[in-house]
């Protein structure tokens, strides 16, 4: 139960951050792809810069979690085609709807209910990938 509350609180912080930083804003994402504002690049850049420090410190100093275990950071498999092709497909959808998978939930909560359509079709897209996976280049 304590852990459920922990994950729930982290989610709330994430949701507030997405709305308040405007990372979930369609306009901001449009502006980013037009290279007319530093805002989104600043957000991602600052998050990654601090993220590198956090992640590399965990690995270097073998830091322990809140629950006392050594933190494991799984390395993803060394693929080239899948992240590139999949990335392009996601990018097309991202620039069209302005929705990454995280902000979909955030924006529905914020009351932008047409995102429910995006969520349902994203589930359908994920399902289609699962079915087609054996036939796609990875």
């Amino acid at each position, binding site marked *: 139960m304590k852990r459920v509350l922990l994950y729930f609180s982290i989610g709330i912080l994430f949701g507030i951050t997405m*709305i*308040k930083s405007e990372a979930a804003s369609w306009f901001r994402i449009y502006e980013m792809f037009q290279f007319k504002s530093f805002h989104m690049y600043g957000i991602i850049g600052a998050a990654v810069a601090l993220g590198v420090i956090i992640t590399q410190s965990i690995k270097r100093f073998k830091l322990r979690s809140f629950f006392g275990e050594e933190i*494991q950071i799984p390395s993803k498999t060394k693929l080239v085609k899948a*992240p590139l092709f999949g990335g392009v497909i996601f990018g097309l959808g991202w620039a069209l709807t302005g929705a990454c998978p995280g902000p979909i939930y955030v924006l529905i909560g914020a009351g932008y209910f047409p995102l429910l*359509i995006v969520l349902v079709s994203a589930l359908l897209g994920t*399902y289609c990938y699962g079915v087609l996976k054996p036939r796609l280049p990875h």
Partner: protein
Amino acid sequence: MAPVYKYFFNLILIQYVFIYLSEIFLFMNFISEPWPWYIGGPAIAVVLFLLLFSEKQFGMSSNLRTLCAMAGAGKKTVFFNFDWRQYRWNLIVAIGAAVGGLIAANFMTDGSVGAIHQDVVLQLDSMGVYGAGENYMPETFFSADAFSNPKTLALLALGGFLVGFGTRYAGGCTSGHAISGLSNLQLQSLFAVIGFFIGGLLMNHFLLPYLL
């Protein structure tokens, strides 16, 4: 000597009260106004930190796979044939995210949004997308009217499908690849982010003008 000393003491006290009040005022602005990038970016890093120290990963798109598995897609497709219960924590994060969105949009805003570059505002106006720099989201797509507009519905459905298909194919989205993956210095996350931008720029510059 004593009265002079007291006089200075009072002056300093008044000054401190003033500074304290103005700080509360600044904090109130911080709650109600949009955050600049140097607050938003580090806040995302805090989310990453909290999840890693809870022995979990920051990646929102895997929830879509978990939801498919929950709905029983594993019976027919190997990709969804796993014990989704071990990923319940991430669904709780997603529910929290929705609640966070509700809180921020209703109780932490004075209705103002960050300025959007004037060129972008004019460009969007000419494309029939109004409200840049005034509303948080374009009403054309994200107000309740969207449900009765077949073209908008089709665009939202198409975009959602691409997001769902693409993130799973790539093995992550902006959180899983761009934040977690790049922080872990993974080369494939860099390929994914390059892919995100190729796709995003294609849509933004060459396809959106025809689709809208």
